[in-house]
């Protein structure tokens, strides 16, 4: 029981990271109807920036600076590489984002060097003891941080002028244009937000650990998450992220009792959950029917 509760806590921490990553994908998808494969690169870039800034700015200062810079980077990439492709089939644009991903990662890898870059965050692997249950501090911090970010995002989309314009544009782009919404601004803001979210997610994924060339693979878990949550649903990204995080940790806990499954079932568990959900709900937990293009 204690073990299960501890796994749940780890799952919420891990799931928060997936949720932030997935939100980035969903926000871009809602605005542009394209799944952006550049997210892993932004995640890596933001995280590596934090490892460079943390010495002088401290953890939170470094996180804010890296998030802002990654958002700017995403903004630049959108303007330079993606905007000119508007009107091309979504598949073509998706491939362009894949190219962007590779290009950005090649540059970032240069800053990682041959070694790993340690994170040196304030929490490391320190833990609280809550009534006999051990909960790692980093998991609590990421969960709380993610909750604040998610609340801020929802408030933004619900109450702000730009958030409303972004929602409208995702439903009917031409009608939004006719109201005077600048669709270019909608694209730009969504890419910047997604870049910033990836930076935060990556930083917390590396908290207590270090950054290496392969860290971007974490971002790929966002793909089963968004498909299971519904490509165009922010709530789906959050719920899907948490579900996948919890399933991952719980599977990891029990796989040792089922050696015949092999040692790495937890790694494929997100995809299994995705498949199971799709069997019951073809558009994901919260997705709308019409969405099927990539």
């Amino acid at each position, binding site marked *: 029981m204690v073990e299960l509760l501890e796994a749940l806590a780890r799952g919420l921490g891990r799931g928060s990271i997936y949720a932030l990553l997935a939100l980035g994908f969903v926000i871009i998808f809602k605005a542009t109807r394209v799944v952006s494969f550049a997210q892993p690169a932004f995640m890596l870039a933001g995280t590596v920036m934090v490892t460079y800034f943390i010495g002088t700015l401290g953890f939170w200062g470094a996180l804010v600076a890296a998030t802002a810079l990654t958002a700017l980077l995403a903004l630049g990439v959108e303007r330079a590489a993606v*905007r000119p492709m*508007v*009107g091309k089939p979504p598949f073509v644009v998706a491939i362009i984002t894949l190219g962007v991903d590779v290009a950005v990662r090649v540059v970032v890898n240069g800053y990682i060097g041959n070694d790993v870059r340690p994170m040196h965050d304030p929490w490391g692997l320190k833990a609280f003891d809550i009534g006999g249950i051990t909960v790692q501090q980093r998991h609590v911090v990421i969960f709380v941080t993610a909750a604040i970010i998610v609340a801020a995002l929802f408030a933004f989309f619900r109450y702000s*002028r730009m958030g*409303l*314009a972004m*929602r*409208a544009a995702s*439903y*009917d*782009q*031409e*009608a*939004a*244009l*006719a*109201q*005077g*919404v*600048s*669709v*270019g601004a909608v694209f730009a803001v969504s890419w910047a937000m997604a870049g910033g979210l990836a930076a935060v997610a990556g930083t917390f994924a590396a908290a207590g650990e270090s950054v290496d060339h392969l860290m971007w693979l974490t971002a790929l878990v966002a793909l089963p998450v968004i498909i299971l949550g519904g490509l165009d649903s922010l709530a789906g990204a959050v719920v899907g992220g948490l579900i996948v995080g919890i399933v991952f940790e719980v599977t990891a806990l029990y796989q040792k009792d089922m050696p015949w499954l092999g040692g790495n079932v937890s790694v494929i568990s997100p995809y299994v959950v995705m498949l199971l959900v799709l069997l019951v709900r073809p558009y994901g937990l919260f997705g709308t029917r019409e969405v099927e293009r990539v």
Partner: protein
Amino acid sequence: MSNLEVVYDDVALVLRGISLGVAPGQIVALLGANGAGKTTLLRAITGLLDVHDGEITKGAVALDGAVISGRSPAALVRLGIGQVMEGRRIFAELTVEENLRLGGHTNRRKISEGLARTFDLFPVLAQRRKGTAGYLSGGEQQMLAMGRALMSAPRYLLLDEPSLGLAPKLVEQIRDLIVRINESGTAVLLVEQNATMALSIASHGYVMETGKIVLDKPSAELLADEDIREFYLGSHTTSFREVKHYQRRKRWLS
């Protein structure tokens, strides 16, 4: 607009030498069968041709003596051109109020003023303020689309077939609302298939046929014209199905 030519997909010449004018404060009717090019003409004014891969290849649209063709849709809204698109195009998933706020996207300092004016003109929208727009009836949706367009306080309002799909009673109501909007100083370009309704309130009328203006007369004269009656009973709608099957490629940005 003068001598306007519009081409879709680099090949299909849809407007051929259109000249048309709307004076401040006037109501002008634009009539024509399906596929005549009425909606295309409105897109040329509002900057939405781009979305449909269309392009002005000749001529220009001017406002207050300055050429405005080529401006972005947002810039045109700011210049005082509001529109109700064909099919209303309200945001069904959003609330009535959110729809209206979007109409005021370019006019953010005057949102509450605009809401008050809109609710005064369309009391039914005030009642349904927090309700989902998609659940409104057809007539209410048309009012919402008109109210949304008014939120930017336009000097010129372009309406694309506001009576489409509405019962005669509602058509009358919409007609009266158009008159009220016009009385408050907004000029109206009214695109209609319902010629009687449009001409009854317009001071001037144009009739389009396959991309050309074929008649350009005061409404009273058009109403009396036998040709008009024949035109609307005639067989000019043959290619309607084809018309609606063009491919909508998306290109939104300039």
